[in-house]
């Protein structure tokens, strides 16, 4: 925290807030972005508390809120929260699995003022999709949901998470998004924190698969220009430059957990020693300005070499803290995705070894993670 107490120039307000209304979800994807220790329903913020958080966010300068989870639609008060966001001028996005709502409840959300819906897909192949989500019939439900979104007139983004089980079908996932009338598709390689880190060997594609996928995405971009916006989240383990994670720690974005803890990114709880403040105890503006967790890696003062003297330090902001932790054991190290990191080759080797071996079984995302000896044995074989 040294020297970071008075960041100059003055701190800009966050652009967006991810609101994890709940960790409850009917799906069990092994790359879930929620923490391993899931919050139970009784710990969740109340409707009144979320309304106050929305007010504080708008006041602070947040422009967009993403209603997320878990599965945010399991909260019965979602229409009220969407309506409140609209009333105070916030742009609202629903990030959903698409398996819990019927058409009528979706229409209620649209009427409440929802601006946009983002639907995740696991694959184009129904069987693999069901296997990844551990939810039989998941694809049929999602396709129906996407149809309703378009019929109701909401703009749709499809989010396709890429891993070794579906990497060869990247192009078909993009084409599916076009067929479904999406304005945007996010093709996102798995980010290995939390559940995904635990399932890394079960998810990691090979370098060749990743290169082919990247080429196909680029070709689709050229082919579909003007028809759909394609955003590509790069595969860190095979990258040479780190991504500008969250647009820089504590610069543009905040995340609020179901119980009200405010995080600089959704995986920040994996970093030991960080202390998070809660909207239950402090105003959001104060947390944004001075919470220890936000100050820890904000700006460039915290950076070690090779970041400190790098001309990219205010471009990539040192990359991802959670990834640095996962690979090097230190959250303050340079992101190993960077070719200049001493751990760069180690990360590449981890990916190569994992992807060359047969895929172990998934450890599905559940309230109580299962740790059967047979699965651990399979993972280390």
């Amino acid at each position, binding site marked *: 925290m040294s020297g970071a107490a008075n960041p100059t120039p003055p701190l800009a307000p966050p652009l967006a807030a991810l609101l994890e209304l709940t960790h409850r979800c009917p799906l069990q994807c092994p790359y879930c972005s929620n923490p391993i220790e899931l919050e139970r329903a009784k710990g969740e913020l109340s409707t009144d508390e979320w309304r106050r958080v929305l007010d504080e966010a708008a006041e602070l300068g947040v422009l967009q809120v993403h209603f997320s989870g878990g599965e945010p639609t399991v909260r019965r008060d979602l229409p009220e929260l969407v309506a409140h966001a609209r009333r105070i001028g916030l742009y609202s996005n629903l990030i959903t699995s698409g398996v819990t709502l019927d058409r009528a409840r979706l229409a209620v959300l649209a009427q409440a003022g929802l601006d946009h819906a983002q639907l995740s897909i696991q694959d184009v192949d129904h069987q693999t999709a069901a296997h990844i989500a551990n939810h039989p019939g998941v694809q049929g439900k999602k396709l129906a949901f996407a149809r309703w979104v378009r019929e109701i007139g909401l703009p749709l983004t499809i989010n396709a998470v890429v891993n070794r089980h579906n990497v060869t079908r990247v192009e078909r996932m993009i084409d599916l998004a076009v067929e479904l009338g999406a*304005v945007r598709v996010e093709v996102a390689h798995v980010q290995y924190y939390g559940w995904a880190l635990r399932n890394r060997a079960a998810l990691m594609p090979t370098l060749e698969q990743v290169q082919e996928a990247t080429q196909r995405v680029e070709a689709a971009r050229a082919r579909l220009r003007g028809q*759909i916006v394609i955003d590509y989240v790069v595969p860190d383990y095979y990258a040479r430059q780190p991504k500008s994670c969250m647009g820089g720690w504590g610069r543009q974005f905040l995340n609020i957990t179901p119980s009200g803890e405010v995080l600089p990114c959704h995986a920040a709880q994996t970093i030991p020693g960080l202390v998070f403040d809660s909207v239950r105890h402090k105003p959001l503006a104060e947390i944004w300005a001075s919470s220890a967790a936000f100050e820890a890696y904000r700006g460039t003062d915290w950076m070690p070499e090779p970041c400190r003297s790098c001309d990219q330090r205010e471009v990539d902001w040192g990359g991802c803290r959670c990834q640095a932790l996962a690979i090097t054991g230190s959250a303050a190290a340079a992101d190993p995705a960077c070719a200049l990191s001493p751990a760069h080759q180690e990360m590449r080797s981890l990916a190569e070894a994992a992807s060359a071996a047969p895929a172990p079984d998934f450890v599905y995302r559940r309230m109580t993670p299962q740790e059967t000896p047979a699965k651990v044995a399979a993972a280390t074989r």
Partner: protein
Amino acid sequence: MTAPAPLKSAIRPGLAPGVRLSFDKARDCWVVLAPERVLVPDETALEILQRCNGSRPVDEIVDELASVYNADRGEIAQDVEDMVSDLIAKRILVG
């Protein structure tokens, strides 16, 4: 690879569904809010965007801007057409 088709001056551009132009009090500027995107238009872009209401053809927008700014119509037409076709490709506007 594929150059965008030339813009027809008769199209009537408007904000795409899910896109809002709004004034941001915290930053004291206009912003375009779109799926996973916030754009901050410069002065020229804002003048154009504020006229893209889905009912006015590009031609009419160009005429008006040329007269408001007392500027060369050809130059204005180029600016407007470039911006509108770019924002249509990005799904911020629909034509």
